[in-house]
């Protein structure tokens, strides 16, 4: 199992560009959601 992807040739290659792209998209979406949510939290708890 380990053989195929552990050799020199593969070591530094991105094998799964789609997954990488998805991760980056999700990362950005999550950061946006987090800050929106944070703003909402602040409103709910501290603004009166």
């Amino acid at each position, binding site marked *: 199992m*380990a053989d195929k992807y552990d050799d020199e040739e593969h070591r530094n290659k991105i094998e799964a560009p*789609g997954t990488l792209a998805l991760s980056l998209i999700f990362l950005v979406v999550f950061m946006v959601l987090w800050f929106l949510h944070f703003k909402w939290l602040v409103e709910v708890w501290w603004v009166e």
Partner: protein
Amino acid sequence: MEFRTCSFTGLKIHKPAEDLIKWNVITAVLFLTLGGLMGLLIGITRWPSVHYLDPTYYYRYLTLHGFDALLVWIIFFEVALVHFTSAVLLNTRTVIPSAGWIAYSLMLIGAIFVNITTFAGKADVLFTSYVPLKASGVYYTGVIIFAVGALTAFGHFFANIIQAKRDGAYKHSLPLGSFGMAAASIIAVVTLAHGAVIMIPTLLWSIGLIKYLDPGTYRLIFWGLGHPSQQINVCAMVAAWYMVSAFVLGGKPVNEKLSRTAFVLYIFFINVASEHHLLVDPIFSNWHKIINTSYVMHLAVFASMVHAFAIPASMEVALREKGYTNGLFEWLKKAPWGNPAFSGTFLSIIGFGFLGGTTGVIAGTEQFNIIRHNTFFITGHFHGTVVVGTTLAFMAFSYLLMPYIFKRELIMPRLASVQPYLYFIGVSMVSIGMMAAGALGVPRRHWDITFSGAPFSFTFDPSVDMFLSIMGLGTLLAVFAGVIYVVVIIGSALFGRRVAP
């Protein structure tokens, strides 16, 4: 003839292992049915416009829901995975099958004790049974018998792999699915030891042999059982993810060493996260709480991130090898979305990460925990981890077990192929509804959030009703999808068309 060769996977399957897997899976599904029914009843009770049960039954069924869904369904299924990964996946036999049956019987007897006592109204203590809430001695006895059975079952894992090594079934290290279950079994031993340490004195206290148990001490040791057992679930779920990727797509881990390291991180760090249940308790010092929530937690989270990247990546690599190489996402479009084992696994990964994982990091942060503790947010968080994540992953895996182990085709394959989607949407609504209401302060385990008759009046933000209604509608959808699952699995096991052995 003790062995047969599976026509789908080429695995050599030992008959006793096969029987143990079958019985554990079916028993698990029956308890999921009971737990799901209780989920329906309490779900529509927390839906303000329905508010179905009266308080006694709400707490009684909430106790049963927690116990049957979280412990009985999940652990029986994990025991099936123990036998699958320590015998079937290694093409070897299961040693001392009778020990497997003893474990099975103990777990079943323990679960029945707990269910009967609770239905009889003698244990309305919720599955955490915090002292000084007191249940009948039969309840604690049931929990202890169940835990001893589970300990025996996880011990079986080690017996099997030691024998497999002697038989030369594997050379250097275990295949990844078995490695994940090895991590699960190691954590299980630690966890169940805590269970014994706390449940035995609690039993003695409930029958009057011990006069006083300190609630703080109880909570401390209980969460040595309660939290790590969630990490057994995480390891078993991740192991199931890897196995589905391998069986359905021929996917191999992109970097096996990295994936193994991530499992080892679970063993070391995730147990420490038990502390997040005690952040508002006076037990720990601030130093403890800060180290725990600001540093150690993230090492465990890091391990989940590794898996969350490695598994889709392994799927992508496998699909690209099948020729879907156009652009960034052709592989994703052409993936077998109609196969419930695949779609269930994929949705489980997404739901676990984005509903359960992210919110867990929020709730596990000390500063946030102060305002989130004991709100519905927490309940929403763990329906993201343990339901959208673990339960959906196990459902997906059981769709593979039907042909591989039960030697039956799925009945109603069309319905089965939409089931993971419906369940995912339903439970996501439950989870998001709970979290939103909880963020506005709605408490968990609470029958009357209008506080009628209280000396001071209090009203929540009006949007709370909307969020709780989203949860209520999600409850109906999730239960509907749960019924499909149970009918398909039990129906296939009994009446599915036989596949060639």
